[in-house]
């Protein structure tokens, strides 16, 4: 008879790790993609478009399978399931975040770029010191949305055999047959986690937001 609490705790940690990694790695990659799309020329724009359409158009479970089975077979090496989980969530999130970052950059781009050039900075410097600092702050509310989205998709991990929170719950139910309590309990855990993170994101936004720039809800 397994003690449920460590199981749940471990599952929760896994869920947390994947979702946090997904959001932040997704942001980093998404920013790179957005910049590549805006400034990289046609070739990159087309590549990036393909990337985005793939990750936004197919279910995450399929993406997990593709990275777990298809790619290793084609490229002839093995990847550990957990690594696949982290990777796919990050890549998936990046596809969405690229859109948010690109939107934020475009909103402020024209005039801020000209102002940056006017004081003698190069386009690159203006991008780094003027445009990105503003764009990234504008994007913060979209983060918390994205984070909710990712967290709600994490149960998909169980299809790879990864022991996340939902997998833990299923094991417990398998042993104790206490269906409603177990599933409701983890439902509450997910809910609490999402609520806390959203609150934190709100606070961060309040502190870091630029007076005078607000996104329309």
């Amino acid at each position, binding site marked *: 008879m397994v003690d449920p609490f460590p199981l749940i705790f471990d599952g929760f940690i896994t869920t947390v790790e994947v979702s946090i990694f997904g959001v932040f790695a997704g942001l980093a990659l998404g920013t790179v993609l957005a910049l590549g799309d805006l400034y990289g020329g046609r070739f990159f724009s087309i590549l990036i478009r393909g990337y985005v359409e793939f990750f936004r158009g197919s279910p995450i479970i399929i993406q997990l399978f593709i990275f777990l089975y298809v790619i290793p077979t084609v490229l002839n090496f093995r990847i550990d399931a957990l690594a696949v989980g982290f990777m796919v969530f990050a890549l998936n999130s990046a596809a969405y975040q690229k859109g948010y970052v690109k939107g934020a950059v475009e909103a402020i781009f024209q005039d801020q770029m000209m*102002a940056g*050039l006017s*004081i003698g900075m190069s386009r690159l410097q203006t991008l780094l010191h003027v445009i990105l600092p*503003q764009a990234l702050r504008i994007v913060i509310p979209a983060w918390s949305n994205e984070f909710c989205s990712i967290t709600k998709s994490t149960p998909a991990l169980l299809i790879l055999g990864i022991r996340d929170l939902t997998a833990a719950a299923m094991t417990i139910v398998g042993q104790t047959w206490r269906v409603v309590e177990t599933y409701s309990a983890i439902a509450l855990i997910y809910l609490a986690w999402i609520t806390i993170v959203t609150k934190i994101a709100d606070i961060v936004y309040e502190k870091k937001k*630029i007076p*005078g*720039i607000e996104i329309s809800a």
Partner: protein
Amino acid sequence: MANTVMRCEHLWKTYEKHLIAVKDVSMRIEEGDIKLIFGPSGSGKSTFLRCLAMLTIPDKGDIYLREECLTTSGVNLNRARARIGFVFQHIWLFRHLTAQGNVELALRRVLKLHKEEARERALQALREVRMEEWAHHYPAQLSGGQQQRIGIARALARNPDIILLDEPTSALDPELTGEVIDTLRDLAKKGTTMLIVSHEMPFAREIADEMLFYDAGKIVETGPPEQFFTNPQSERAQKFMTRLIKRTRKE
């Protein structure tokens, strides 16, 4: 003979086939000069000014900053732009930085000064436009006039060879233009070389050494302010001035 700070020769800039903003324009501005460009809206004045600063690249013609030709290929435009100060009609301050931050940015990233020195010079520039008290405020917390004064400080801070101003007061509420004009007056007294696009006529009369009437892409007439207010030579300038005076009289 005074030093020529900037000159352009046979400058052309066209938008979308039909709109010729700059039609074979040549002019020069000497050290310490204050010249004012005025004319009907849509005539291309702002585009012309932006071309001079190479913020918009002209189609044809040459631009010289002191001895350096800016329009040849291979020129380091960033370095050149670092020697030109530009003030925008819509101000365009960096919203994520404080007043001080806005002025410091170029000092640190372009002139590569150290933190302390940049701060000193930034505060000095803010002092010149009398915005020192507001150094730690963000643009959104300040009025339009205050923001524009910071815009001027931002342009000044690098000690540029010349300052170009594109309708610095046009986007401001009337009560706020006064503070900006006062600031420009101070700069004029100090001998700053300035090329201003504006339709603030009384101000023009007071401080401009020369006024240039710009219409449909060309500099139609030039001369001291008095000439335009008493006896414009060209017909188009006459028409423009009459309409202007009629309007001001009505107000």
